[in-house]
Structure formats: C-alpha cells, structure tokens
C-alpha cells in the first residue's frame, strides 16, 4: 500500500479538494482491519461515514404498505377533496340563507313599527264651531275637577278643630 498517496489524499481531503473517486479511495483504505498508527487519528471519521451510509429505514414494511396505499388510494383522496369543497359551498349557502332571513325579518319589523302613525287632521271645517266645541270640552273637564273641591273645604274644618285642641292643652299646662 502506498502510504505516501494516502497521506497526500488525506491532506487534500481536509482542504476540501478531493474528487469523489479519491474520497472513495480513502474510505476503502480506512475501512480495513489494520490501519497504520499515523492514520489512526482520522480512521474513526471514515468508519463513521461508511457506517452511516448503512443506516436504513427501521420499518420498511410500514412504508411499503403506506406507499401502496398512496398509489392506490390516490383516487379516494381526490374524492375526499371534492367532498371538502362541497362542504364549503354548503357553508357559504347557509350563511347567505341566514343573512337573507335576517334582512327579511328586520325589514318587516320596521314596517310594522312605522304603521301606527298619528294622523293629524282637522275634524271641523269652521274654526268658530271648533272653538265652541273646545270650550265646551274644557268646561266639562274643569267642572269635573271642581266637583271634589267641597270635600276639601270640609277637611279644612278638621285643621280648625286640631288648633282648638292644641290651645286647650297648652292652657291646662
């Protein structure tokens, strides 16, 4: 074995100048059972590289069944997606429906509230007649108001009696 060449390749390797073929040569060299003392320092790295490349998927069967699933079920996946979009359309439709019902209710409510408006209209054509009628109505109201006043006069007698009793009490003292 030409150690001079290995030394040269190794130096080139750490400089990042080696070609893929040269790197393969180094890997081969370092994966022998016996490696001279002077190269031991870096042997571990090349063993690491070789061993790392042997790592495989731990559960290949699982992946294979998944792959079969992917390649077969691809049609189903499409159907599923289409279902999803239909579902989205129904969402949009439902929202529109709610909005429509809400606006209908809102508008009818407002119409109902607006109808009982106070209608201002003259009931009499002649202002004189209107005045007479108004006076009559007001007099009627005032007569009704005065109807209770005589009881109020009677109540005032009570306060006179109260005064009398108070005076007699003071005289006794």
């Amino acid at each position: 074995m030409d150690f001079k060449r290995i030394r040269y390749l190794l130096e080139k390797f750490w400089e990042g100048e080696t070609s893929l073929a040269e790197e393969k040569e180094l890997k081969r060299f370092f994966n022998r059972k016996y490696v001279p003392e002077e190269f031991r320092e870096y042997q571990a790295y090349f063993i690491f590289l070789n061993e790392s490349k042997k790592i495989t998927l731990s559960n290949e069967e699982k992946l294979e069944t998944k792959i079969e699933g992917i390649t077969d079920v691809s049609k189903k996946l499409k159907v599923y997606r289409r279902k999803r979009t239909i579902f989205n359309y129904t969402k949009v439709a439902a929202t529109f429906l709610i909005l429509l019902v809400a606006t209908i209710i809102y508008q009818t409510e407002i119409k109902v509230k607006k109808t009982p408006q106070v209608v201002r209209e003259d009931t009499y054509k002649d202002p004189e007649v209107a005045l007479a009628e108004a006076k009559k109505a007001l007099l009627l109201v005032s007569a009704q108001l005065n109807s209770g006043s005589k009881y109020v006069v009677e109540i005032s007698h009570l306060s006179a009696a109260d005064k009398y009793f108070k005076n007699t009490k003071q005289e006794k003292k």
Partner: protein
Amino acid sequence: MFLEDFKNRVLPTKNKLYRFAFRIVGDTDEAEDIVQEVFLKVWNNRSEMHLYRNMEAWCMRLTKNLSLDKVKSKSFKTSREKQEVDLPLNGYSPHQQTEWNDVLQKIDVFINELPEKQKHIIQLRDVEGYSYKEIADILELDLNQIKVNLFRARKTIKDKLQKTESYGL
C-alpha cells in the same frame, strides 16, 4: 406509466431520504414520517415527474424542506434530545463495537453541532457521496458556497478529532 417511474426512480431513494431527514430532525419516527410525506408529494405531482431530470435531487430537496419545516414548527419540541444514531458496525467484534460506538457517537455530535448548511453538506458529500453539482441542486446554493462550507465543516471536524485524540477521550 407513472407507477413504474415512481417505483424505479423514486422509491429506491428511501434510505437516502431517511438518513438526510434523520440528520436534520434527529428522530427516527419523525424521519420516517418525512419520507412518507415526500413520497406522497411526489406522487401527487406525478404529472410533473418528467420535468425533473434528477428525481433524486428533487426528492432530497423536498426532504430538506419538509425536515426544516418540521424542526421549525411549534409542535416540534426543540428541547428534546436528539436520538443517538444507531450504527450497524457489522463485522466487528462486540468489544470493538462498543469501543467504536463511543467514538462514532462523538463524531455524530460533532456533525450535529455544525452550522446548518455545513451539516447538510457533510451528510450529502461525505456520507452519501453526491457531486458538488447535485448538492448545489438539492440545497439550492451555488457551487462556491458548497465548496467553502465543505472546507469549513471538514476543518472543524478535523480539529475536534485531533482534540479528542490528544485528550484520550
């Protein structure tokens, strides 16, 4: 036609994709999920399959993007420790296996400690043996950046190897 193409050109990349995803996310289950997601994406875009001359590079690029998305997602716990890489070490005696395993785990940590780009480049170049052109394709970088980052990454690893050696770790 698509299925044949898919089986011949896409599926054989599975272990490379898995290793690359594992390098980024550091979790076997997550890495497996990512490989599945990549295949699903490729299959769903199978009508464009003929546009990609290098299917493998396209798959690797998808793997990189999905892995980085996963790492950056909120649901991905950044606090969790990276799983140790499980190296086969076939053909070594049990004693050698345990001896080597310690050193190799350290190297794995060295690589994981590298800046993102350098880490990806080491995985693609030193482990998988891709050409600079292919790496540039996968990582969407120019050739110069690949070379510079590869040099820096190897230099860091070399320094750390020398340190472990001299401290007898």
